[in-house]
């Protein structure tokens, strides 16, 4: 990613956090944890006007969960990395009946993702898969074993969905036929992420073949406030003909037998330990030859995909039937493409030079403007105070730029007096400081313009700045912390900051600057 080298974590955090002004969130409350992820994720949560309401409620709901202290979820611990990114999507739906594992995971979750902004991604296949998987882990006591066992077998990223899937396969049975070969296990790993998730979701939905109503509807409710753990638990008790046959591709060549009876499901079996190949349990009243089984597998996969597409495409829930749904999907894709074209045309007209340097564009407008106003006044005030120490001012500006604008979203009309400006290129066209610095170095197009390393290289060119590099970094940290807290502040609190800026009369030393917020 272009956000800067990974070891520049604190600096990268601030700009990202700066960007993700999400006022309804109490991200400050969840101050620990990985800041980069929530910043990144919430940063690009575009003006989520529709989701702010949800976000508010979610924030409240989440507070209810946050006091949970321990994190003892063994199922969650095994693929920790995967969980960390995925679980961020889950805090939205605290499954009520999930025990310590689920709730314990949530305190971490709330650190990771802002709440309301996942609405558009709730229907994401990845989301569905993660939801199902997480709930699956919660739902069964033996899930921990899978979480632990499977990753070793299949590799970490796909461990979750596939492992959980394997749980559902019935290893033995009299009238069972294994559809796939051992090689397909690895091929199954190769299934794409959506298909992994889809297969996972199919576990929840496809199990309902016998009891169609609750499970299939609840499968769709994956995106809603459903207790996935409960669902998976009920799905467990139902028949377990679940699989993920990569042989479906081969099965496509099999002839289509129209006369398959969707009979009653066979008796349920407890989940089997993961085997190397996929077992499909034949349903009662159905032909048990490999062709029909593979056929059924393929159809199930397709229906699961259609369900996911239904969640993704708005307005598809009402229609039933493949043809009409495909129609809707086609219309939606066409409309999206037309929208992209129209928006690109609009962008080209609105912004002829196509310079998006000083765009505070990721936040809602009113919030953004107010915050920028505060920050601007604050910064200009400081700059005026530090007028005599011009080189320090320069450093401040540099740091500000560094922390606020890797994505060039900073918007400081620097009212620096003449002295600092001698060390700074004259910003033209209202470009912020960093961009004027970058213009000189634009030949390095590969480097991100406001890389911390880049700024540091700029710093090193000024000999008198080398001595103050330590203080600068300190200042930088201060700035980043403050900006971070600034962006997490409520609207009301931001007023405080504006007033507190007035209290900095004359007592400011850069290195000892304590931002009181």
């Amino acid at each position, binding site marked *: *990613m272009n*956000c800067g080298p990974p070891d520049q974590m604190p600096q990268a955090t601030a700009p990202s956090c700066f960007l993700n002004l999400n006022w309804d969130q109490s991200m400050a409350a969840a101050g620990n944890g990985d800041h980069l*992820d*929530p910043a*990144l*994720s919430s*940063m*690009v949560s575009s*003006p989520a006007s529709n989701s702010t309401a949800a976000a508010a409620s979610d924030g409240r709901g989440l507070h209810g969960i946050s006091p949970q202290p321990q994190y003892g979820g063994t199922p969650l611990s095994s693929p920790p990395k995967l969980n960390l*990114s995925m679980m*961020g999507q889950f805090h939205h739906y605290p499954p009520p009946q999930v025990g310590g594992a689920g709730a314990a995971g949530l305190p971490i979750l709330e650190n990771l993702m802002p709440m309301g*902004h996942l609405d*558009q*991604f709730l229907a*994401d*296949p*990845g*989301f569905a898969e993660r939801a199902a998987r997480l709930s699956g882990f919660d739902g069964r006591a033996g899930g921990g074993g899978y979480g632990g066992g499977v990753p070793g077998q299949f590799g970490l*990223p*796909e461990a979750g969905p596939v492992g959980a899937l394997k749980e559902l396969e019935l290893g033995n049975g009299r009238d069972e036929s294994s559809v796939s070969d051992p090689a397909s296990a*690895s091929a199954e*790993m*190769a*299934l*794409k*992420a959506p298909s992994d998730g*889809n297969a996972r979701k199919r576990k929840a939905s496809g199990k309902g073949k016998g009891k169609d109503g609750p499970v299939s509807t609840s499968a769709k409710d994956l995106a809603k406030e459903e207790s996935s753990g409960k669902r998976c638990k009920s799905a467990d008790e139902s028949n377990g003909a679940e699989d993920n046959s990569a042989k479906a*591709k081969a099965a496509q060549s099999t*002839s*289509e037998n*129209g006369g398959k009876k969707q009979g009653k499901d066979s008796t349920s079996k407890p989940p089997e330990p993961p085997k190397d190949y996929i077992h499909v349990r034949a349903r009662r009243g159905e032909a048990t030859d490999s062709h029909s089984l593979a056929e059924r597998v*393929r159809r199930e*996969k397709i229906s699961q*995909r259609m369900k996911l*597409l239904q969640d*993704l495409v708005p307005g598809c829930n009402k229609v039933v*039937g493949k043809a009409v749904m*495909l129609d809707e999907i*086609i219309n939606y*894709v*066409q409309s*999206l*493409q037309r*929208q992209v074209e129209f*928006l*690109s*045309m609009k*962008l*080209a007209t*609105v*912004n002829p*030079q*196509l310079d*998006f340097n000083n*765009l*505070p*564009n990721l936040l809602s*407008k009113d919030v*953004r403007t107010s915050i920028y106003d505060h920050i601007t006044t604050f910064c200009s005030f400081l700059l005026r105070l530090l007028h005599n120490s011009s080189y320090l001012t320069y450093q401040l500006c540099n740091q500000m730029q560094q922390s606020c604008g890797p*994505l060039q979203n900073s918007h400081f009309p620097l009212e620096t007096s003449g002295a600092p400006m001698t060390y700074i290129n004259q910003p033209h066209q209202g470009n912020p400081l960093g961009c004027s610095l970058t213009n000189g170095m634009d030949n390095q197009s590969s480097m991100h313009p406001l890389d911390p390393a880049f700024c540091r290289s700029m710093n090193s060119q000024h000999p008198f700045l080398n001595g103050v590099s330590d203080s600068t970094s300190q200042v930088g940290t201060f700035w980043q912390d403050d900006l971070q807290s600034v962006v997490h502040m409520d609207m009301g609190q931001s007023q405080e900051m504006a007033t507190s800026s007035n209290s900095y009369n004359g007592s400011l030393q850069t290195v000892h600057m304590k931002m009181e917020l």
Partner: protein
Amino acid sequence: MHAPGRFKKAFMEQLLLGLRAAGQASKSMGLRERRDAVRLSSDVAMALASSSARGAPPPHGATASWARALVARHAAERRNEALLRRIMGGAGYEMALAAAAAARGRKDARSRRIVRRSRRVLSAGRKKRTASGGGGGGAMAARRMVKARMKVLRTLVPGADGLRGFSLLSETLDYVACLKTQVELLQCLCKGSRSRLG
């Protein structure tokens, strides 16, 4: 998608970089050219971000197909060469060109295969129709409708030309999700630009 937040962030960064490159490259005043440049950079950004967000491509390999095909589609037009080179770097551009050439080759082979297959299906279909009789007529019609719509979908989704039912749906799913993100991000940029001006 693995992490929509991460994808969005990567997308946005790439988009901004690409747009800046487009702004520098196209000093052309033509509105259409600028619009095409914007669209190109946003498509490239989407493709790159999705590939990176997906992590290592699964061994089966056909998954990022729409991303690669999208970029290849843009690379096929000569006039985009400069901009593409700038955005993706020389190596990336060469890859896109290679993908475009491969796609064209695959398309010929595929069309031949499709013709052969359709002949087979036609004969099989006739048999099926006689076998299923009146009761299956409705199912036949439904199936035909579905097939027709799948065909339309194949033209819409880039790089989904030779895909069968299930994989086609997967690609569509991915593509729809990324398209939604793209629209949102472009709207963001528009709003931001507008607020800056007004």
